[in-house]
């Protein structure tokens, strides 16, 4: 439900319809997290839970970014390293490193992030479509952006969970 509202907002924003901007309603919530310096977000309805880093059992013959499988209360969940997925160098695990487990269409995966930042509202006025730039690969996983007015806060890139989980071999 939420995602529909947001999609609509993004579409409107793209088409230059500024009417929506004025009312500035709250469309949903995102959970934000850091990977390196960049802030990313995931719409809250996809997030199942946040767990600390744990031992990951490697699985042979899968791409690099799939780190392996973990046991989350007797469920076997595959783990993706977002860093590797976005082509960033791996960094050692710190005490802030977390696994966020996501669920989409009954598929569960965990993603490794540097640290979990916050849960915040999505204001319709802040939504911004991603620039159409075919050369930037990682944009494939970004659904839209949330701008920030203050200089202290960064623009957040909201991940497209469906693409992240359902993508076919690229």
């Amino acid at each position: 439900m939420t995602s529909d509202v947001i999609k609509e907002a993004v579409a409107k924003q793209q088409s230059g319809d500024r009417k929506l901007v004025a009312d500035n309603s709250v469309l949903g919530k995102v959970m934000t997290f850091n990977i390196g310096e960049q802030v990313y977000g995931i719409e809250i309805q996809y997030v199942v839970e946040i767990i600390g880093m744990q031992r990951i059992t490697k699985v042979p013959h899968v791409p690099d970014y799939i780190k392996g499988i973990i046991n989350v209360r007797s469920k076997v969940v595959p783990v993706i390293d977002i860093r590797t997925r976005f082509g960033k160098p791996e960094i050692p695990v710190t005490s802030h490193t977390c696994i966020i487990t996501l669920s989409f269409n009954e598929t569960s995966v965990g993603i490794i992030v540097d640290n979990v930042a916050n849960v915040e509202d999505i204001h319709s006025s802040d939504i911004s479509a991603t620039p159409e730039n075919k050369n930037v690969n990682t944009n494939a996983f970004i659904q839209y952006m949330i701008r920030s007015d203050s200089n202290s806060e960064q623009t957040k890139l909201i991940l497209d969970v469906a693409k992240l989980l359902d993508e076919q071999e690229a």
Partner: protein
Amino acid sequence: MAKIEPGMEAMLDMYFFETNSLLEQLDEILLRTEQANAFDSEDIKEIFRIMHTIKGSSAMMGFDNLSVLAHKAEDMFFVIRENPELITDVSFVYDLVFQVSDSYKAQIEAIQNNVGGEYELSNFDELIEKLKNAKEKLSGEANGEAPAPAATPAASAESAPSGNKGNNKTSVRVFFEDGCQMENLRAFLLINTIREECSFLEFYPADVETNPETSKEIIEHGFLITFSAEDNQDYILKQIETALNVQSYEVLAAPSEAPVAEAPKAEIPPEPAKEAVEKVEEKQPAPAPAPTESAVEKAQAAVANVAAQGGSQKQSLISVNLAKLDALNDIVGEIITTESMVISNPDLEGLELESFSKAARDLKKLTGELQDTVMSIRMVPLSGVFQKMNRIVRDMRKKLGKDVEFVMEGEDTEVDKSIVDSLQDPLMHLVRNCMDHGIEENVNDRTANGKPAKGTVKLTAQNSSGEVIITVSDDGAGIDPEKVLAKARRQGVLTKPESEYTVKEIQNLILLPGFSTNEQVTEFSGRGVGMDVVKSNVEKCNGTIVVDSKKGAGTTFIIKIPLTLAIIDGMEISVGDIVFTVPISTIRESFKVEPEQILRDTDGNEMIMLRGICYPILRMHEKFGIETEVTDLKEGILLLVETDNKSMCIFADKLIGEQQVVVKPFPKYLARYDIKGEGLSGCTIMGDGSISLIIDTNTLIG
């Protein structure tokens, strides 16, 4: 047409279950009697009863077409039942009834797939017409041969002696089972069943057919039926007693006008004008095979294969939603995992815990029993699937004009319900293949090879050491390796030089997708889609399939499926920091090796000679790209594993121990990567919460 109301879905489920079971039962009876070429009077009654139940429940659910169809079929069998001497040549009856049964199955499937929507019966009119003709033909014969005054079947049934001609009337008050819903329709149905028998019939409330409000009235005061006492009362009362969902009935005498001169039956009370004289409880035993159970119970009886017994014994069966059993199974799996987490908890290490160990042993015993029981709940015999194959053979025998005998062995073998479901399609394809490709077109081809003119298709099942082995074989032409190889060459599916293929490997090429050597596409096979469906379905339940064929002598397909999918005894081995689980059933031995036992072939592959047999060695760390310090063969350990007569040694760092593990499939997300093809069948959660990968010995060796 009929709209399915919301709230009826539970009933609809029951209706589907019941009707499908009855149809299966019908098929079984038909096949059996057709083989014997004789209708037993018991069989006819049974078929009659099945049709009757289907008619009743279909009408109740508002599927008028289905009800009418069953009614016509019932009519036909009525004639047969009344004139058993007719059944000398009734092969057309079989064809017809099979068609009816097929039509039902198709229809029910359609309704199931489109719950709440409209439905159409495709060849309905045609079938009705055929049934009508058949009935007329039969009753025509009946009249010819037996010149009794029985002009119509209905009349012939009315053999009851009429009593006095007075206007005696008998009233019956019928109560339906609590909460059976739509009492008015049930009442209407009841009226329909007995109408033919009654010369006079009144009922109250009178507008049951059209007015659903009457349900309330019926629930509170019962449904009042008044019929003339000179009618065949026994028969009518029996009908009422055995009608669907009738809880009880009482016979009231209402003759204030005329005295009961001749109380026709014992049921009629001596004191007239008094209500509630005799109450006949539904559970009262009735002579077999009168159906006293509710239709649902009957259906269950059919499932349990105790159909023919019919009768009055109480059923101790219930039907359970499979999803609930799955959930139960999962919980048991987790209990077992948790149990080993508790019992081999690291906190307990080094402690002397006499009482704890005893309690732990008891717990282990109980969880073992729990697991066995849950497994056994899910076990169902294969006979249902086998019967369906029998049916397929029968149909194809007629269509292809091949004289084939169908032999079944071990249909009592029990396997997990999910396996039975996924086996149906593969077996169907295989049996069709045997009939179509296997058995020779020309009988002379058979006799020339010294084989009997009559072909044989054989379906067997047996349990053997934790596996169920199912074979489908024919004594037909066999697979010609030359043809297969030529075809494979054309399709470009060969992966190595032709000369390197063994006959067995060539034969197993036919299991590849899109492979069919049949030049002509027939109704039954030849499109080459069947065999890979077979293979993938079998593999879905962790099974294997191999082909064994001898040109000119026949073909055998051997399917091996592990009996229980979920829990296996495994040996934990470690390689680097990864733990693998090897199914104990595939391990022959494990041993330390001396360097001088190692041989190398020209490619540098390591082999080991054991008791005169040479086995290849597979280094797990190399195969799965794992970093480990143990790379010297004499520091680690070798396990000799064997499946399907193929064996090899796998090299691991060390053995950890034996454990019962719950097999979990790899997460859905990983399904796109070919992990299974690399020799891993799944994973399991170990006592300490970490994950171990389960080795699929078969693909690892292959």
